[in-house]
């Protein structure tokens, strides 16, 4: 039998797995407080030289190189996602994680999102409340150079955003007029896109290719907003490092992490504390892969909940086609305006919880026509091809805006991440198998909201509308697979995001969400990571550590 040879790196105080939204926040905060920090990232740096967003071929980048689906993109750092799921997760594996590709919509959760069991009798309450995240929300908004307008009555008051809102454009104005006629809620969108030069960001140039990388460096991403300060404070960021296991000492504490470097060499990064920030799919995969005699069902999984309760914000769209020119290829591709009119439970409806709506441009002509064709696919070939192709282009291109409808999908044990028994990634680690079905409650919620969005489009003066069913890919936020809670039998981590089962193991990505709300999750992921990092700093003297 061959002995496995593992090379050891210099021990550190903290090792963080993943360099994206949560990992970058923790690295910057902990390094500034004097911790020795090492962060392991399976991908590489991505910057303007890699972007295609300032080329005419930008839309074609979405087909492969800049697809949000790792199974399509298939870069060396991507690991396969298998299984049959109604919605496929989106992710980016590289420095900055999903925030390399995100649309930068910045949306705190509702106050009620933390108390859904108490208020609506479903799912579970969070062990923390909105007020616990209030100060971190403000800090991360500053760090991310968010542009937005405070004072939305649908949300608790926070300090003003650091930058004024990005102009809502013709698309936002048209949509807002419709909401005004109906008497429904809307508000100018907040985005982590600088409306003026701020911090490390330049002012937005409205290219509208935000999800293929911003060549102007106007969109916040950790390689601009957090990693420079983290590295300056002494943090070490290792790229091309795929973590495959979390080994334990004899007391059941994490010793650090085992990873394979870009040459395939297996290495042990010893650390006193391990922080997982690899997103709700990657973290669950790593914990399940770290099964041992002590934890036969996966590390930190005495509750049996690791990988379960996956939530993904099922998403539908209603596109409003107007006669007036709307220049709807213009960016940014964040949210022009949003609505929380139907975000809360209404006992008169046949579903619980609700949605967030947001208005977006349609991008270039390839995207605009593809949307039209997808919505009309059941009408047959001649409805969308041949000369009809030009009719579709003339009708929709530059004359449309889209209401995106993002649903709160409640946590269900059978929606989950498991290890694929056959398929492995390039390092031999099992692929993540996604089992996810959109629930009846969510379908009812989306059906109701789509009907309302059609009304909103018509009130905005739309001459026609078209509707898309649940998007199978392209949106899929990943949340909930390592939920936080006070009861070790019903949660994976405690209110400070420390594993109930392993005293020096933390999870700080979106996996800790108890419920998903309907808001885009990044603001909350980053705020929570900051809250946890600050707690680690305050309690460092009493932190149990690995041998």
């Amino acid at each position, binding site marked *: 039998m061959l002995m496995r040879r593992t090379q050891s790196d210099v021990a550190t105080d903290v090792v963080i797995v993943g360099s994206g939204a949560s990992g970058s926040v923790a690295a910057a905060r902990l390094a500034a407080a004097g911790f020795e920090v090492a962060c392991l990232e399976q991908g590489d740096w991505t910057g303007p030289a890699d972007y*295609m*967003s*300032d*080329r*005419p*071929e930008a*839309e*074609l*980048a979405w*087909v*492969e*190189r800049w697809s949000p689906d790792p199974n399509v993109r298939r870069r060396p750092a991507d690991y396969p996602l298998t299984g049959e799921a109604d919605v496929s997760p989106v992710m980016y594996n590289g420095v900055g994680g999903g925030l390399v590709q995100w649309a930068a919509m910045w949306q705190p959760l*509702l*106050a*009620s999102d933390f*108390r859904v069991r*108490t*208020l609506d009798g479903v799912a579970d309450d969070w062990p923390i*409340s909105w007020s616990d995240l209030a100060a971190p929300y403000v800090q991360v908004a500053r760090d991310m150079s968010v542009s937005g307008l405070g*004072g939305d*009555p*649908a*949300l*608790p008051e926070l300090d003003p955003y650091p930058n*004024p809102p*990005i*102009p*809502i454009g013709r698309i*936002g104005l048209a949509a*807002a007029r419709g909401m*005004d006629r109906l008497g429904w*809620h809307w*508000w*100018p969108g907040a985005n982590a896109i600088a*409306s*003026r030069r701020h911090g490390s960001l330049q*002012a*937005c*140039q*409205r*290219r*509208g*290719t935000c999800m293929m990388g911003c060549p*102007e460096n106007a969109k916040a991403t950790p390689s601009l907003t957090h990693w420079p300060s983290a590295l300056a404070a002494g943090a070490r960021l290792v790229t091309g490092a795929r973590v495959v296991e979390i080994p334990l000492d004899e007391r059941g504490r994490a010793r650090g992490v085992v990873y394979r470097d870009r040459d395939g060499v297996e290495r042990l990064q010893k650390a006193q504390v391990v922080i997982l920030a690899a997103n709700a799919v990657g973290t669950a995969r790593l914990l399940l892969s770290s099964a041992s005699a002590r934890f036969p069902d996966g590390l930190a999984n005495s509750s049996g909940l690791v990988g379960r309760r996956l939530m993904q914000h099922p998403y539908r769209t209603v596109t409003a086609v107007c006669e007036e020119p709307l220049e709807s*290829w*213009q960016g940014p591709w964040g949210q022009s305006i949003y609505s929380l009119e139907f975000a*809360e439970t209404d006992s008169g409806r046949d579903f619980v919880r609700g949605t967030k709506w947001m208005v977006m441009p349609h*991008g*270039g*002509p*390839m995207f605009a*026509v593809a949307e039209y064709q997808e919505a009309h696919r059941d009408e047959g070939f001649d409805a969308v*091809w*041949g*000369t009809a*192709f*030009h009719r579709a*282009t*003339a009708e929709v291109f*530059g004359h449309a805006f889209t209401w995106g409808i993002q649903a709160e999908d409640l946590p269900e044990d059978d929606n989950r991440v498991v290890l694929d028994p056959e398929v492995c990634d390039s390092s031999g680690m099992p692929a993540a198998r996604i089992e996810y079905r959109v629930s009846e409650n969510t379908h009812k919620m989306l059906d109701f909201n789509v009907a309302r969005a059609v009304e909103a489009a018509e009130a905005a003066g739309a001459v026609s509308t078209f509707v898309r069913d649940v998007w199978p890919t392209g949106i899929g936020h990943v949340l909930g697979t390592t939920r936080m809670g006070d009861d070790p039998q019903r949660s994976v981590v405690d209110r400070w995001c420390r594993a109930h089962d392993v005293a020096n193991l933390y999870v700080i990505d979106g996996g800790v969400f108890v419920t998903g709300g309907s808001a885009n999750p990044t603001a909350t992921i980053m705020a929570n990571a900051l809250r946890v990092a600050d707690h680690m700093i305050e309690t460092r003297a009493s932190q149990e550590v690995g041998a």
Partner: protein
Amino acid sequence: MSDSGPTPPQRATFALLADILVAEGLGMPAASTVGVAAGLLDRCLEAAPVLAEPLRALLDEAAADDPDAFVQGLSEHRPDDFAVLSTTVVGAYFLSDDVRRLIGYPGQQPSPLSIAAEPEYLEMLERVHDRHPGYRECP
């Protein structure tokens, strides 16, 4: 044309199929007349290399078939293959400068923001504030 790009026969087949998907009409040119089977095809495949191999296989297969029947067959029974063909045709078509000019598309060009001191939506926003009941209080 790169060495690994479609051959001249494959390009000829592509032009035939492309014109079925994007025909001349409504003041717009057919796909082949703007050059989708020439340089635009190369640009498209360079931007999305994943399309190249399956497209070449499709074009070889199509060469022995009636073009209309082939495209209809893909559309009705082979959605993944149809997506390869249609994505390439549409992607190449919208790379054409002539097509962009005809549809009034300047491209995803930089355009500096202009932030108004008093946006024209302010009155509408005041009405939102006045009529909203406030956020849901929580225990």
